[in-house]
């Protein structure tokens, strides 16, 4: 009688990649619901197309183009698709989102070998592609909830856009902090409700699915930098609270920068990664041509990730540094 002699450990947790991805999808549910509530049927269509389209595109690439017959969907494409949908305006035509998905899944993910091989966050690559190719459609912001009252499109500038053009006092006169916290403002579908994003984040923290150090350091850095600039000129630069509640910061810090594949895996690495994201975000918000810089900051830090990892390698338990001169 011969038994299986595979190597230890003989016990494995019943965790797997699909469970991780499903948890992330669940965590995005509150933000998705807020998107549909605020932007209506087109928002629902975009979310469905995001999830289903991404999974179908991945299935096609894996089965037909890469000929991986035993491929079983793991939900990572659905996460990318939903994140991309939540990162566009609720008014975007669905076929443009589909183009974004093709870029995200095909170009940003599978050209590099699929899940685990991609250096850049696929959803962000898709978003930036759309942003550069279709700037008008990508920045036509619907006023939150206006679809319920009017058939005609009611547009509304984002708080960050108003800050850039007219200063913080004007921005706050249009939308108070509570509006920004709950999501009663213009912006990308998934970014507007900080509350919904925080609920999803709390779920991931409880499930132990998220590199907490990244949002802590990212948001902390934004708070720090905006506090300094706030003292220089409150109206021009905006308050710290204004900065963390506005734009894509929460969506980016909680769900995009924390993408496992494209961020470092040590706590120290994550702290540096988040710090870099924070600095670049604020530089773009203050001095860039665009009002918002979360996407670019994360993509730039994705590129820096290998360097961060190289410089923050862990030392084994009980490591004794070699004394200089001693041989």
């Amino acid at each position, binding site marked *: *009688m*011969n*038994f*299986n*002699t*595979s*190597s*230890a*450990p*003989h*016990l*494995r*947790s019943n*965790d*797997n*990649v699909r*469970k*991780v991805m499903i948890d992330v999808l669940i965590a995005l549910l509150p933000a998705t619901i807020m998107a549909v509530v605020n932007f209506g049927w087109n928002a629902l269509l975009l979310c469905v197309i995001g999830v289903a389209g991404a999974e179908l595109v991945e299935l096609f690439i894996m089965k037909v183009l890469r000929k991986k017959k*035993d491929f079983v969907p*793991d939900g*990572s494409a659905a996460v990318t698709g939903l994140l991309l949908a939540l990162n566009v305006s609720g008014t975007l035509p669905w076929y443009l989102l589909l183009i974004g998905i093709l870029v995200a899944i095909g170009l940003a993910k599978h050209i590099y*070998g*699929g*899940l*685990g*091989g991609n250096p850049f966050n696929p959803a962000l690559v898709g978003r930036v592609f759309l942003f550069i190719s279709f700037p008008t459609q990508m920045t036509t912001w619907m006023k939150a909830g206006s679809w319920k009252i009017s058939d005609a499109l009611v547009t509304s500038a984002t708080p960050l856009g108003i800050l850039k053009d007219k200063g913080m006092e004007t921005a706050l006169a249009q939308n108070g902090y509570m509006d920004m916290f709950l999501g009663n403002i213009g912006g990308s579908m998934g970014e507007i409700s900080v509350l919904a994003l925080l609920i999803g984040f709390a779920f991931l923290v409880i499930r132990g699915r998220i*590199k907490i150090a990244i949002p802590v350091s990212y948001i902390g850095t934004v708070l720090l930098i905006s506090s300094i600039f706030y003292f220089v000129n409150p109206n021009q630069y905006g308050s710290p609270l204004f900065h963390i509640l506005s734009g894509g910061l929460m969506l980016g810090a909680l769900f995009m920068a924390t993408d*496992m*594949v*494209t*961020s*470092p*895996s*040590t706590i120290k690495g994550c702290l540096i990664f988040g710090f870099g994201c924070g600095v670049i975000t604020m530089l773009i918000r203050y001095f860039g041509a665009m009002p918002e810089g979360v996407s670019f900051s994360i993509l730039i830090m994705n590129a820096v990730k290998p360097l961060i*990892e190289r410089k923050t*390698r*862990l*030392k*084994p*338990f*009980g*490591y*004794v540094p070699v004394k200089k001169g001693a041989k």
Partner: protein
Amino acid sequence: MALFTFPGGVHPAEKKDLSKNSPIERLPLPKQVTLYLSQSIGAEPELTVEVGQKLKTGQLIARNKGIISVPLHSPVTGTVKEIKKVMHPIHQKPMESITIETDSKTEEFDFLPPIDDYLNASSQQLYSRILEAGIVGLGGATFPSHAKYIESLKKPIETVILNGAECEPYLTIDYRMMLEKTSEIIEGLKILMKISGAKNGIIGVEDNKPEAIEELKKFESDKIKVISLKTKYPQGAEKQLIYAATGKKVAVGAFPFSVGVIMQNVSTAYAVYEAVKLGKPLIERGVTITGEGVKSPKNVISKIGVPIQELIDYSGGFTGEVEKVISGGPMMGLALKDTSSTVMKGTSGILTMVKSSGKPVPERACINCGFCVFRCPMNLEPNYLVKLIKNKQFDKAVESGLMSCMECGSCAYTCPSKIDHVKNFKTAKRVYSALKGRK
């Protein structure tokens, strides 16, 4: 009460209920025993007997060669039937073994002279006894026990820690020993403190064994303390337990005595007590026979050299479709090819696992989730090490701490991509040593 612990680690299902309430039974005398001469870390001892020779229980059959080596004794009264090379289950190559046929009528003993007044004996005398009795670490690592005390004979240490963590799931033999042989274990600890000159004795037990903690606490004194450890794997790993108990970190590549500590398993302390008080060499040990693949899981005292099939038969035989028979625990144990190999000094458990429902999950690409980094008790980056090893960058892997890996399996256990880190590390360590030897 604050529990003592270490950073990292995992929480596999404990499964100790299968056997924890079975009192230790003595396995009936086997018809014959087969002993591999190599039973421990270090040099294989040298045979001192020949085929046809009559042996008494406890008689020396192989003499230690060098310092890191232990002698071997006959577990039974009988006749040497065969001396030949057989496949060694751990070294995976043919190695010397001796088969002894048991005399079923009489049992005669050839033990060492007892040291009754052991608390007034000299350190040197007690040290020699541990060596002569062939005692090795019974937790599974089988490091020759006497070798831990060589340095302490010159310079006394601070603390002897007894490891009663038994952090491997399923295994319960240390737990039963602590319950049933409490005073003997305490005496063993006193002997070890005497040899090493240690002022303190600490017994660390995971808090999932409150009954054992309670029993041991009855023997607490100024010098001997029992501590509750957080139930977390690998709490019983040497460096982790020393850190949990004393807050001291044993440096990479160093031994515990560098921080004034010697650690020993509770079952080893029991063997030490028997060797000193009764003069009994290490010819038997406690084994947990457990898992979903045997009818009635048990804790037994088995002679060294008993075929594993006999232990399984004693537990009612196999049940269900058995997929694996593991020597040791599920996290670090060795999966055996068949049940013809025999109980060794390091066999703490025989674990049977039945076929799991569903297909085995294939290994997927690393998603850099960092779970393995977070759980590694040695503060390594298992994900990075695997990448280096897959690229055949063995030197770089060693520079990055590969040799600090104790193969506890926390990384592979936790990995959502089902990457077999430990297998990669084991292979890489072997390849690296082979390459280094050639240079």
